[in-house]
């Protein structure tokens, strides 16, 4: 690869101070350091450093998302063939899925990179690798049929309003990928309409997600409704099938096995917090059991969903593993992470059950807790301060 190194070294002066392309220095620097690891040396502090850097952290999250993309493509093709009543093999499913995902992914990355580079150039800071993860997450939260212009508008909103106006990666309050999702959800409800949240709608067909089936139903058991739907529609809403992911939904959310393996991988590498994930599962199970106990006193069918169904319905696991654990917007204290996770799980069930207009609660639950994470940290830190002050007073 020496030839490539030579080319980069040869053009380097153009981008340096007083070079012709000085303004594009962040772009050159990003290309240079993505292709070849930086040769920066330590100056102050420890003379040696750990090999981990933000590039590695971000690229590993992106790698952990790749299986979701592959399964997403397979599932899109499969759902499409189900809807049209066609028989198909996995190859045609994969190809037809990739043809749907490809343009969404390309538009997301093109838009994301445009804004990231623009802000880096204007603000004269280096391009942050965080946008890679944001852009890799956005398509997975969208239905495959979303118009591409909406993807571009949503991504722009997520990157600019969700991140850049706060000062870029590390300064943002809300998860940029979820900001995109929320923006699209509230701005263009026709495409991701209220009762079809996170739903795939194959061409010319109005598909329903597992969560939208019991939503708004009265005096019925949710599991029975799902079983009826499995009989009356072409989709199979059994627990196992939802766990395996062969149901309508957003591109990346459906297969729970893949999400669990990605979670284990991220926890093993040490870059995401298992506390948030476990905390939010506990919160979900606890609150679901509570709604089950309350269900005899209400006609709301959503209250009857058992905890193990809650876990595999909708994008709870996807949101918990990839969105809630985003280090910048989550709680920063270890104890706070437990509370932060627990409340995400709890709010997910509450929003799902109580408000039939938003059958998918995880998006709003995470955004809400993003806003409250600093408050949780405040209380955790305050208890530490209180302990110290008591000691000082002695």
């Amino acid at each position, binding site marked *: 690869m020496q030839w490539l190194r030579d080319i980069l070294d040869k053009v380097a002066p153009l981008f340096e101070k007083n070079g012709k392309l000085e303004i594009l220095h962040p772009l050159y620097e990003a290309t240079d350091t993505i292709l*070849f690891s930086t040769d920066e040396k330590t100056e102050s*502090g*420890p*003379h040696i450093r750990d090999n981990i850097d933000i590039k*590695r952290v971000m690229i590993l999250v992106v790698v952990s998302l790749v299986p979701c993309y592959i399964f997403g493509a397979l599932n899109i093709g499969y759902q499409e063939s189900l809807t049209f009543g066609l028989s198909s093999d996995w190859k045609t499913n994969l190809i037809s899925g990739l043809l749907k995902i490809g343009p969404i992914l390309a538009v997301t990355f093109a838009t994301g990179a445009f804004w990231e580079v623009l802000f880096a150039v204007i603000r004269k800071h280096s391009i942050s690798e965080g946008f890679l993860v944001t852009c890799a997450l956005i398509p997975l939260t969208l239905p495959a049929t979303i118009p591409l212009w909406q993807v571009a508008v949503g991504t722009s909103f997520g990157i600019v309003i969700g991140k850049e106006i706060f000062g870029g990666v590390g300064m943002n309050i809300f998860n940029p990928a979820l900001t995109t999702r929320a923006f699209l959800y509230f701005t263009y409800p026709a495409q991701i309409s209220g009762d079809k949240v996170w739903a795939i709608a194959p061409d010319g067909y109005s598909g329903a997600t597992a969560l939208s089936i019991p939503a708004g139903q009265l005096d019925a058991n949710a599991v029975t409704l799902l079983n009826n739907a499995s009989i009356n529609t072409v989709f199979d809403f059994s627990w196992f099938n939802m766990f395996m992911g062969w149901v309508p939904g957003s591109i990346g959310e459906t297969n729970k096995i893949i999400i669990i393996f990605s979670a284990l991988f991220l926890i093993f*590498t040490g870059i995401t917090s298992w506390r948030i994930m476990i905390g939010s599962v506990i919160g979900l199970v606890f609150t679901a059991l509570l709604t089950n106990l309350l269900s005899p006193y209400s006609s709301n069918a959503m209250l009857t969903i058992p905890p193990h169904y809650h876990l595999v319905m909708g994008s709870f696991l996807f949101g918990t593993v990839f969105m809630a654990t985003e*280090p910048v917007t989550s709680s920063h*204290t270890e104890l706070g992470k437990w509370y932060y996770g627990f409340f995400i799980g709890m709010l997910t069930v509450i929003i799902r059950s109580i408000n039939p207009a938003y059958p998918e609660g995880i998006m709003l639950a995470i955004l809400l807790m993003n806003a409250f994470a600093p408050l949780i940290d405040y209380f955790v830190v305050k208890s*530490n301060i209180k302990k110290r002050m008591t000691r000082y007073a002695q």
Partner: protein
Amino acid sequence: MKEIVLKKGHNIRISGVPSTDSQSLITSKKVGVSPNSFRNVKPKLMVSEGDIVSIGSPLFYDKTKPKVKWASPASGVISKISYGARRVIEKIEIKVNGKDKIINDLKNIENLQDASRNDIINFLLDANLFHLIRERPFNRVADPDKKPRDIFISGLNTGPIAVDLSKIINENKAALQTGLTAISKLTTGKTYFTSSQNHNFKNVENQIIFGQHPAGNVGIQIHHTKPIKPNDIVWTIDAQHLLTIGRLFETGSYDPSMTVTIGGSGARAPFIAKVNACVHVEDLIINQNLNKQKIRLVSGDVLTGQTISQNDFLGFYDSTLSILNDTVKRPFLGMLSIGNSSTKYSLTRVFLRLTDKLFNFTTAQNGELRPMVPISAWEKVLPMDIFPNELYRAILAEDIEEMEKLGIWECDDEDFALCSFSCPSKIDVGRVIRDGLNLIEAEA
């Protein structure tokens, strides 16, 4: 006897660790003291070029505390005094010839048990060795006019390539006991000696600490014994300097010899040596064949030490000379590499690392400076009841009140060195902690 068990921390497995079997003796032709390396000291010279000095005779004193003078670590001729910017005294070089020592009058200290605090302090001041004692907070040379709450001595080194203190302690128990008996008089509180095993020293509190680096840092030991409050003053002494004090009380003269380690990934032949304090670096690296290699020399360990050149001298409080390979490569698509035990070292598992073999560290930063992305990297290596992330932000905001609430008084930059080491955003947390301490110090 108290036992402290630390769960957090990390012993860096750096290559170039000297074997403990052999110890060479190095006689240096030149030694040197850097007055500006002592924090907050305003030095005033007491010698000039060409003067003849003995071991123990004063070289300079501190204008803010004129009683505290610095003993010459060698006997010979002042060969050179070099100044830096704004006439800062950078180095006092002494060409060694002879072994003349100043013998202090021991009359007052005939019976150490009956000696008073003033006797001990005056004796240390007369020997020009009071700077062996440092004070916390701020980790600076102690003030003889102030009374410390407690005194802490760490009998354990956990830093990379550090000197193994247990051997030194076991071989010099009597002298160390003399030193402990003497300095325990300096406080109305307690004197704590913390080590990896119980040494049963008298007149002090013996403590045992279990855990990885920074378990050997005295700051961590203070934090887990009796944390520093605002307005508290705690004195600390290095174990090897305690030995120096012990010998001083036994013989009446300053013995400037100490054990140092020379090692690191750039060292060809790591070794342990008995040397004169403030030894000339060139004398230590003569057998390392470093001519063709690009290397960095560090006085102290690789986490907290200072870059020096071979014409410099080992820092007064340092007992390690670290040699690091200074050639940094640029692997193609390094961020996608799977990694292996010889190419990547991380406290996380973001690279494949199947064996625990010693790692050939270079001076590479391994990434660019980025805004903080808190993946708990700091918290995992800081065995203190402190929120590093919040403290860091309070310091950046220069919010002194918040810094105090978050425990800045209990902190020293060396305890946060591992946080800087493991930070994925390459933030130098330790330097920021020092900035915070400087702010508080300026305020106080």
